[in-house]
């Protein structure tokens, strides 16, 4: 009779010989052994990209029940988030951008389709252990830094709450060490730890919020309008922090905002969303160079330029959804050029192609 432990060890040994140079944490191997959820083969949306897909939305439908009637906010979402990138999600209020972020975090349920995380299904019903694991891996930064921090607990408690929940520290000393490390990373000082949120300015509070999510060492952070409530001079600090964590810790960000100028600075790729549908998705640079969808153009011209001569002579475009004729020819989300997707029907696609 072979003991269970030995089998496990054997497996580990096998794996190690196969992938010799790869440093696989033992945690992962154990999970593979348990086979609690299947791996799926996700076909990336873009054939031209060699980047690894971290999150994949496939035909995701999100809505809310109101008096037993389903109000669909996001009808059919297809989106890839690559590992290590900052994906900007832009749209006006009510377009469903926050809803998408929340569905990814499992705060609101999906009504159809699947969300995959590292090729594993994370939407719908999941075993308890996996749900817990996801909470650790996906963190969030909220819009309003004064509303998202508990006013009655001190900064030390706020930041280490996640550590406590998952027992991610060895002893009290280790916990303190981790907390003061993370607070230093966001540019605050250790003496701030004993203070309460109301003693801080908006920018500092937002940095506490960031420290709280970053201390968990997540792989993905959903940042829901993290700078909309902040002053101009403080915005820059928070944006720099996000960029720093992306570059140094290789974290992936889903950055939700309504201001294109900010998103342009921080994002690698930008998805423009209108009424729950992504109308255009491209690299930040390309989207500004060659916007195709009329709504993207309207958004671009709406961004105020800090230059009196240019701003006063600017021509503003207003988007009207009725400019599309989708009665016969239904629109599809198509990759029109490398890594540049647009929602259009066949006739529009031909027109857009001429512009490229």
């Amino acid at each position, binding site marked *: 009779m072979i003991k269970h432990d030995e089998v496990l060890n054997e497996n580990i040994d096998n794996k190690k010989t196969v992938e010799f140079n790869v440093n696989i944490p033992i945690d992962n191997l154990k999970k593979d052994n348990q086979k609690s959820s299947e791996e799926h083969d996700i076909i990336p949306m873009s054939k031209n990209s060699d980047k690894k897909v971290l999150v994949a939305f496939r035909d995701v439908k999100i809505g809310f029940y109101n008096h037993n009637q389903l109000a669909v906010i996001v009808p059919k979402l297809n989106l890839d988030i690559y590992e290590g990138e900052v994906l900007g999600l832009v749209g006006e209020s009510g377009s469903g951008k926050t809803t998408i972020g929340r569905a990814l975090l499992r705060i609101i349920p999906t009504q159809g389709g699947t969300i995959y995380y590292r090729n594993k299904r994370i939407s719908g019903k999941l075993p308890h252990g996996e749900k817990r694991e996801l909470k650790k891996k996906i963190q969030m930064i909220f819009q309003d830094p004064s509303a998202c921090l508990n006013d009655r607990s001190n900064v030390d408690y706020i930041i280490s709450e996640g550590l406590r929940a998952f027992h991610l520290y060895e002893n009290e000393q280790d916990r303190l060490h981790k907390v003061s490390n993370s607070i230093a990373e966001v540019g605050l000082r250790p003496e701030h730890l004993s203070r309460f949120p109301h003693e801080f300015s908006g920018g500092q509070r937002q940095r506490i919020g960031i420290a709280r999510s970053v201390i968990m060492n997540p792989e993905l952070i959903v940042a829901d309008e993290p700078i909309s409530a902040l*002053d101009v001079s403080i915005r820059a600090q928070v944006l720099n922090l996000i960029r720093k964590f992306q570059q140094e810790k290789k974290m992936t960000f889903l950055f939700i905002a309504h201001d294109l*100028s900010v998103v342009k600075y921080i994002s690698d790729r930008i998805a423009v969303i209108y009424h729950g549908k992504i109308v255009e998705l491209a690299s930040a640079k390309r989207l500004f160079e060659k916007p195709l969808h009329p709504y993207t153009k309207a958004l*671009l011209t709406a961004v*105020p330029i800090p230059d009196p001569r*240019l701003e006063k002579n600017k021509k503003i475009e207003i988007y009207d959804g009725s400019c599309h004729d989708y009665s016969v020819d239904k629109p599809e989300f198509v990759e029109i050029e490398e890594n540049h997707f647009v929602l259009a029907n066949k006739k529009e696609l031909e027109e857009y192609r001429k512009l490229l």
Partner: protein
Amino acid sequence: MQENDINVKTENEREIEISVKDLSVCFLSHGNKLHVIRNVSLDIYKGETIAIVGESGSGKSVFTKTFTGMLESNGYISSGTIMFQNEDLAKLKTSKDWLHIRGKKIATIFQDPMTSLNPLLRIGSQIIEVLRLHRGMNKEEAEKEAIELLRRVRIPEPEKRIHDFPFMYSGGMRQRVVIAIALACNPDVLICDEPTTALDVTVQTQILELIKDLQKEYNFTTIFITHDLGVVAGIADRVAVMYGGQIVEYGSVEDIFYRPAHPYTWALLSSLPQLADDGEALSYIHGNPPSFNEEIVGDAFAPRNKYALKIDYIQEPPMFKISDSHYAKTWLLDKRAPKVEPPKIVQNLSKKLNSMVIDNKKVGDNSD
């Protein structure tokens, strides 16, 4: 055209609407006296749009609240005068004194349209209330006028929508209603206290356009409070930059954007994400805005200022005149001060943004 006319007139020829002299405002809080506005002087000309820029806590809202006597109950004007149509507004005390000014001659639009509208009253009755009180109309006249006002602020089907409640409107529409109420008395001065901060970018441009159009129509003076420099560039004729309860620089919009002189203005401009290069960290202002708990000695911005001189910590700089329209409060402009070049980003502002506009033109071409 209008813009050129304003530029042709020299400062002396223009009619002054509000003249603020050495205004100081104090707040009493827990036995402390907080000196929140410190000796501010500013002339606001008739028919212009002046933008007041600064971060939160710089006193920009408090400053304009003194024009309508809407300071919080623990705040008071400790010295100075506000001359408006041959009357010193700083001397007005009771609500009765204010009645012929507030809402009638000087109207305010606030940031959050939901809190400025009464959620229990219909849109129409809120406009009619103002018309009957200030313009003495009877019910029928007032209702007609209210519909006309809603049409002016481009609300579709005003005859029907006048009976709606505020919650039935979107944020942009609510702000339009607030503007309609503000315009009900044909005010001489319209104070816009961050009217678009709570709105989306696309809605923001529409509201800004509306305010611009209405200004042409009604010829009022606009005082525009904001922290968004992009908005300032689009709407303002003149700009006043506030920091630590003082105006540190003021001038025409071109002066402020193309020839800024105060280090704080430099810092504000260079923290704009529009100006950053790809992959480059944004510059930002270190430290915190000054606390009013202690008396500020010297230049309030000195502790956060890269270019601070020794004297900045000892003595407050006077207002230096740069040109007829442009003034700045920094020792760097003194003859004895060392020559300091503004940061590169600020110097290249035009060039940098021009490259962006070429993009924008392409956007325009595409649509044609």
